[in-house]
């Protein structure tokens, strides 16, 4: 399993910088927001927490597409599934690799982008904690979606379609916590719910995703 993680990270690094790119997409989406809604700073600071969460979600989503497809297309997944690593392990590792290459960098630049959108100073801590709690769930759910749409050519959009509704609870609680934090309100409850969702997803999703993958490999 370590070997798989290392290989995935290495491939992400090699193939045009998988690390930087999810990040850059996030960056660019956030930067495009003022262009589209206008530069008024009061407006921007009001929508900042929500938009940052939405951007993080989309960046995750966009990098899901090839998460399993690449391995499926060149036959590596067939070979892996006949290897001693259990499928549950494979999907967990894939989710972990995805989080390390996408979620973690997002977390690190979110404060910077908060500045661009005039996020109120009080909001930074809560934003980061909500992202830290929420993005692992996004990765894990994403792997489930990727397992579902494997083998479907141009599955990218279908994947988004399947995964986005599953992302809604995470998004609601995450964005709510970040918004309350930015406005100086109480944010404990949504954060707690968010943690609950993530725990639940991380505990159960690997098994579901493995079942789906097994069905799809047949």
């Amino acid at each position, binding site marked *: 399993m370590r070997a798989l993680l290392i290989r995935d990270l290495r491939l992400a690094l090699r193939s045009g910088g998988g690390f930087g790119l999810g990040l850059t997409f996030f960056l660019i989406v956030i930067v495009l927001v003022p262009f589209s809604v206008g530069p008024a700073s009061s407006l921007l600071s009001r929508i900042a927490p929500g938009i940052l969460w939405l951007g993080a979600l989309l960046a995750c989503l966009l990098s899901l597409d090839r998460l399993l497809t690449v*391995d499926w297309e060149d036959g590596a*997944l067939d070979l892996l599934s006949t290897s001693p690593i259990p499928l549950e392990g494979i999907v967990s590792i894939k989710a972990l690799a995805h989080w390390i290459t996408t979620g973690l960098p997002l977390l690190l630049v979110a404060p910077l982008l908060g500045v661009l959108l005039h996020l109120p100073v009080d909001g930074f801590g809560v934003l980061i904690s909500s992202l830290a709690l929420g993005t692992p769930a996004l990765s894990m759910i994403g792997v489930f979606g990727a397992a579902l749409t494997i083998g479907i050519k141009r599955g990218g959009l279908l994947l988004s379609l399947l995964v986005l509704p599953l992302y809604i609870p995470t998004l609601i609680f995450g964005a709510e916590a970040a918004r309350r934090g930015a406005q100086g309100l109480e944010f404990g409850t949504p954060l707690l719910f968010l943690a609950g969702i993530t725990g639940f997803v991380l505990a159960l999703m690997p098994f579901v995703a493995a079942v789906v993958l097994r069905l799809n490999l047949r």
Partner: protein
Amino acid sequence: MILTVSNLTVARGGVAILAGINFVMVSGTALVVRGPNGSGKTSLLRTIAGLQPQMSGQITGAEDRIAYAAHSDGLKAAMSVAENLEFWSSVFGGPSIQPALNAFNLNSLASRRAGHLSAGQKRRLGLARLMVTERPLWVLDEPTVSLDAVSVSIFISALESHLANGGMALISTHIDLGLDAEVLDMTPFKDLAANVETSDQAFL
């Protein structure tokens, strides 16, 4: 160890294409699967490798013993030949890759990126992967495609030493490999399949 296939029915898209397959393989033997295009060789091998569910019948002795190799070799273009092999070796418990590199004459290519190999070189790498799995049962779908005469004989000798060490091999092919092995022809099973009901029978 023994691989037993009894009364196997193989289906594609819900329709049986092979039926009544029975055979037993023991350590040290190879079985060559032959038949015209579209006769179901690939489907049979994928079923035995567990990549496709059988319609009915039993396969025993295959679980966790199979190293499968088909047209798509699962090679990562961005990684070097050695890195590709090392990855598979560590997935299968970390045997050294050197014997595989030697056996398939890949030493001079070890640091080349897999994406820069020619068709035959890629195939050689795909076959070398079999050795690092240390699995006893090789299931090979047209392994000699794109290989030149020298590479074919390299492959045959690797295969023979695998068999001599107590391994087994199930191989589909269109050309004569010059291998001392039993042949399984698909044609009779195809005829038997014509009588099998489709899985959608209930709708009829």
